[in-house]
């Protein structure tokens, strides 16, 4: 559990870990993808705290809160893509297909970091720079 500021702090810490691993991206693409997702998770939790004074709580609740609300569609889109990339990073177990075959290092950088995570960060920062709207609970 944490406040908006605490989640942003954790997101920044994840970002520093990514920067560190980028020095050896070829050795650790799965970890970069995984940490990118967790950075996104903390950014989303910061957003939810900003908007509703309560963060996601668990994966299911967080997922539903951003997916069911049209205002957060852009964020939900890239949060989902980061989640799915991290699932492949963590759970893809095939004798002939490795995570790097799906996301070679240059794709980890261009697609996961410079596109998915960047888009999510930009959208979240737009919301965080505004006053929170009156509480609108998820419809589902």
């Amino acid at each position: 559990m944490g406040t908006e500021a605490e989640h942003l702090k954790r997101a920044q810490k994840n970002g520093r870990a990514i920067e560190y691993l980028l020095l050896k991206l070829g050795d650790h693409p799965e970890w970069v993808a995984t940490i990118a997702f967790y950075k996104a998770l903390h950014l989303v939790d910061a957003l939810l705290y900003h908007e509703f004074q309560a963060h996601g709580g668990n994966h299911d609740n967080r997922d539903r809160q951003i997916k069911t609300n049209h205002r957060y569609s852009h964020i939900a889109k890239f949060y989902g893509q980061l989640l799915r990339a991290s699932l492949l990073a963590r759970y893809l177990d095939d004798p002939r297909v490795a995570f790097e075959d799906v996301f070679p290092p240059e794709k980890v950088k261009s697609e996961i970091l410079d596109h998915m995570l960047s888009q999510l960060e930009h959208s979240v920062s737009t919301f965080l720079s505004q006053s929170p709207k009156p509480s609108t609970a998820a419809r589902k």
Partner: protein
Amino acid sequence: MTRAMSSSTRRPEPIHLDFRTKGGQVIVAPNDEDRFSLTIQEAAMACKAGQKQVLFGRQFERGLLPKLAVWTDQNQEKLERAYLTLGDGRLLFLVVRKNVPFDSEFEDRLSDLDLQIAQDEELGLIHLSVLALPKVSRTCYESFLDTRMTLEYGGLHGD
């Protein structure tokens, strides 16, 4: 993520779904009606439908299944397999692509589907996540399928 555990006993075959259009509507037909009824119950429990099982069944059978069928049909040139199963306590639409390298356009289409279903007020009881696997072995993609409930969309890989 909680993965479906491999069982030392034989994994049950997924319920096969065929779909066709009739009068402008998509009709989804399972190949095993008895098992399909149990499937809806499992899905309702995953979505925590509680006392709203009848409404859930309607949303599941007449709403979700046809929507996924249409999407599968529209994207079949890139798909090897498509399943509806359970994952992490909710429904999981799991697809296996025909290729290995990441496909951003395809991933965008999957995202659009995910959000479309989440924001559809007529599917209010449906809790779904989506996942696309690259072209992987049967052993690999089967490890993502839950033995309690797996429906397979037909017509993708020559069957």
